[in-house]
């Protein structure tokens, strides 16, 4: 399992990469491994508001289903259409082509609530 150092993580196993006020969000390598083969990802429409800690979609794997929780508050500016046709990208490239949504941050300060890579690794080691 890999956990890139430049990302922030949630205790619900999402990651976020922040770049110029926009956060790119996906699920971690650990999360995709626990879920198994992803078959559908349900994402919000562009323009929709998402809230810190609230569900913004679902991931359906063959054996399990899981809610997706937003690491930040803001407005959805883009969704990954590629994973609608190729959901296996969430398993194969969770941090790259398997990303899920982009959010324009409403409150940049929220990011302080998130876990850094060391804290996240500790969480999943439990």
């Amino acid at each position: 399992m890999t956990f890139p150092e430049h990302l922030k993580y949630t205790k619900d196993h999402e990651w976020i990469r922040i770049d110029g006020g926009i956060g790119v969000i996906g699920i971690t390598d650990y999360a995709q491994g626990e879920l198994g083969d992803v078959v559908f990802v349900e994402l919000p429409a562009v323009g929709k508001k998402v809230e810190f800690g609230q569900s913004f979609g679902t991931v359906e794997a063959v054996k399990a289903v899981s809610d997706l929780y937003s690491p930040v508050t803001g407005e959805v500016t883009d969704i990954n259409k590629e994973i609608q046709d190729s959901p296996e990208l969430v398993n194969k490239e969770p941090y790259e082509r398997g990303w899920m949504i982009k959010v324009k941050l409403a409150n940049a300060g929220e990011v302080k609530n998130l876990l850094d890579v060391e804290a996240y690794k500790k969480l999943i080691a439990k």
Partner: protein
Amino acid sequence: MKRTPFFSIHQNLGAKIVPFGGYEMPVQYAGIMEEHKSVRNNVGVFDVSHMGEFFAKGPNALSFLQKITVNDVSKLVPGKAQYSAMCYENGGIVDDLLIYMLAEHSYMIVVNAANIDKDWEWMKSHCPSDVGFENKSDVTALLAIQGPKSLNTMQKLTKADLSSIQYYNFVQSTLAGVDMIISRTGYTGELGFEIYFDVMHGEKIWTAIFDAGKEFNIAPIGLGARDTLRLEMGYCLYGNDIDQTTHPLEAGLGWITKLNKGDFIGKPVLEKAKAEGLKRKLVGMMLSDKAVPRHGYQIVVNGAHGGTITSGTFSPSLEKGIAMGYVNSTHSEVGSKLQVDVRGKLLDAAVVPLPFLKKN
């Protein structure tokens, strides 16, 4: 928690291990989708040693089994196996099982892992004292080798002519130097075999089969893909689709329930249910939207509660959400429109014929 003789092999293969029926079992190795396709396209091997094996012997073994199971055991001859079920007096299902006729007055009964103790107690309480009844579950290894390349794989290892064994028939022969029962049965809908042998030969047999199947890309298959494979065929799983609250007729198991064979436990209730007409039936459903129906989701008929999904999954072969569940007989016809409550959303579904996957 018990372990099968293949436990360390599963660990070395990197399997994800889960508790199932009192055993630590592999749920997946490479992933459910890949394993599912290995079985549909090539050949896969399942460790199903957690299943229970009982042996009944003696001149009264036949009448014992006739009384306790719903299918007609008198139709068996040595070398033939039969799918059957046991019922309580009220018609509820104790377990579904296989009966193998090994020789005159000699039978093997194969039951679900989670039900071994319950079935043993139930059968024992109805077993005449002159029938030798033995539980060899802990010393019997069981592997299922399934898929279009299973015959080519297995034939390399035995002199027995496996191509001549018809579906639900078996031979007692030697494979890779080990005495075993080689049965043309399975839970996948594919060409395949199930082999029963002494646990002491576990590793030897596993290795021989994987060496023989290497050229066909043989793969180990976990319980996850076992479930998606059986569900595509509409096969019942005890604990999900059938249990003590369901009877064989409403579960679509009328074809194994021989009401004309003489007395058996549960028969009066089943006869009455049949005469009155079935109130509900187990049906197959397919969702029109992209979604995965799962065990426990509510079925909605005309805006009201219409039943519960007993088994549901994403079908890797059909790439659609498929499910089984009990609905009122008035809505059980193929084509009937239903809805499934998928996490708060009502999605359209229709009753479809079983099996979901049509094989040639």
